[in-house]
């Protein structure tokens, strides 16, 4: 669905690249996470893929279209949810969606269905300017689905949302993905990436340092240990067992069988820990 080869971009038109020799491919139906701290080159890459920034150097194909010569028809297949909400503040939520629906050449979704989907029903006739930040964000998110996109660009889709709504938004992303929608997710939130993405790319200083699935990364970089808390002779004991050493695996089975377990955790690494390990940088 997306093919990027040797992509470069410089805002100052010199060799100070904001995006430096970036290459990756995304298959149809995949959720691909583009992860990195602020200023890493995530948004620049996304803006090039969506035509908001002109391609300077490299080969980019999006939804079967060469980004060097963007055709407007390409946008019939693309949906884009921006990090900063950008809706017409003097139009109601419903009017916003109705207007954007008219700008595509394909069959569009019922604006009210989308309003309901993001939990704005009952507020659809209120001017978007009077919406809270979270409501505007949800409206921007809903708008990105108006044309039934095959390829969905999501820039920090849960930023600024309360946990319940963020969870609901994640469910929508999963549902759409199950229908076959390819998702390009830009975020610095490793938890949402871990939960949603089939594969993630770590980008720092304009360069991709690593691309793999969260599961593989955890296996590769995590410690293969299980930490157990249990009562032995009335005392709370905390022990770690290797999941690869045969002797310790047997010992773990004995502990599970013969004791009252309080807690048990696998000691796999989080994406954030892996990111720091790989890039030597934090995510903020």
């Amino acid at each position, binding site marked *: 669905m997306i093919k990027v080869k040797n992509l470069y971009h410089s805002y100052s038109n010199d060799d100070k690249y904001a995006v430096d020799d970036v290459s990756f491919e995304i298959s149809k139906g995949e959720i691909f996470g583009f992860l990195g701290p602020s200023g890493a080159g995530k948004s620049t890459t996304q*803006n090039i893929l*969506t*035509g*908001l*920034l*002109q391609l300077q150097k490299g080969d980019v194909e999006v939804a079967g279209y060469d980004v060097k010569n963007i055709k*407007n*028809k390409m*946008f*019939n297949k*693309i949906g*884009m949810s*921006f990090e*900063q*909400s*950008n*809706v*017409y*503040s*003097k*139009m109601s939520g419903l009017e916003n969606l109705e*207007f*954007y629906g*008219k*700008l*595509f*050449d*394909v069959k569009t979704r019922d604006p009210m269905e989308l309003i309901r989907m993001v939990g704005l029903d009952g507020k659809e006739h209120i001017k978007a300017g009077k919406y809270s930040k979270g409501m505007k964000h949800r409206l*921007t998110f809903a*708008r990105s689905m108006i*044309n039934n996109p095959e390829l969905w660009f999501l820039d920090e889709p849960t930023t600024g949302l309360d946990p319940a709504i963020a969870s609901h938004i994640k469910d929508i992303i999963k549902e759409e993905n199950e229908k076959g929608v390819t998702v390009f997710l830009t975020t610095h939130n490793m938890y949402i990436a871990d939960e949603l993405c089939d594969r993630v790319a770590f980008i720092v200083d304009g360069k991709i340092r690593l691309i793999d699935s969260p599961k593989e990364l955890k296996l590769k970089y995590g410690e293969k240990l299980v930490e157990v808390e249990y009562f032995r002779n009335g005392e709370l004991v905390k022990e770690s067992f290797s999941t690869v050493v045969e002797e310790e695996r047997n010992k773990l089975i004995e502990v599970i069988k013969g004791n009252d377990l309080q807690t048990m955790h696998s000691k796999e690494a989080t994406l954030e820990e892996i990111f720091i390990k790989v890039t030597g940088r934090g995510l903020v």
Partner: protein
Amino acid sequence: MKLWYSFTKELVLSSKSWYFYIELGMAIILLLILVFVVPEEFNSKGNEYLFLDLPQVVRDRYRDTLLEEDLDETAEMVEVEADKTIFNAEMYETEESKIYLLDSMDALNAFSSSERVPAVHVHVNEDNQIIHTYYLQGYETQKLKNLLLVFHNRKAGYDVIDDYSDNIIVRSIYQDIEPLTDRQNLIPVFLTFNGSLMSLFIISAYIFLDKSEGIIKAYAVTASTVWQYLLSKIGVIIITSIATSLIITVPIMGLQPNYPAMILFVVTSGFFAASLGLYITSFYKDIVQAFGALYIVIVIMIMPNISYFTPSWDPDWIKIIPSYIMLQSFKEIVSLNGNIAYVLVASLGFTVLGLDIFILANHRFKKTLTL
């Protein structure tokens, strides 16, 4: 179809914005100024203050001469104030001026020194010659001083000057054109600045408002094009310009102007001005940054006004400033039997130029969408 949707959306949004009502409100204010403040014709008569320090016989002859030139052939007794003192005076009103004969040298001094107006002391010298002593204020031109010297030179006396001026033939080149009244003469200025050129600034305001809300980015990732977005904005601005132009013109000029030509010219010149505004806007992030460039454009566009109101100052370089052509075109449009061919050529020129600038602006906006 998308252009139509964008246009109607912009029209609805404009009707909800302040800019729209500011433009209409300004047009109404300008109309009220024209109707209630600006006279049909400006009073260009100068005031002249004289003290006739002459023997009675000579003074009577002087008065008789003034009476012959007076519009109603009667002198009016008036009170005039200078240096907070009231003086009596005889007032004679001719076609060119109002002449006040003051009753004392004190009055003359008061007018000359306190009111800072030129005053004339007419008196007789020892050789019984009539002497005119002018108390000038320092701002008079050398031409005026020379004229006074010639006028009072005995070798070129009144008879010679009268004879010379009587033989000057004044002939109007465009005999079928009725000159505009002073009030009507202001309409082309208002149409140029409130109608056409305001598009330049209003479109900047609209674009920067959308930029601050990120609307352009959202529009750019739809199957619609940037040029449709830009043109829909221009369309709305032109509609407003047509409305404001009619608000100003119809009540003052009635059916005299060539309205089809006027609407055509408002559309083409407005398109040019709005495209120029778009092009300037494409270089900046917000209106604060753009203000410097917009200010320079404002100053340049205002300059042809000087030429419009001072026809003797009409250098070639000022004729290439677009507002000069706009002023002249609107003048032709509102004049009886105006030169519509000039207006049509100017419209064509603004269309071609506007289209070129619009293409450039569209190209710039495509490159700077994420600014």
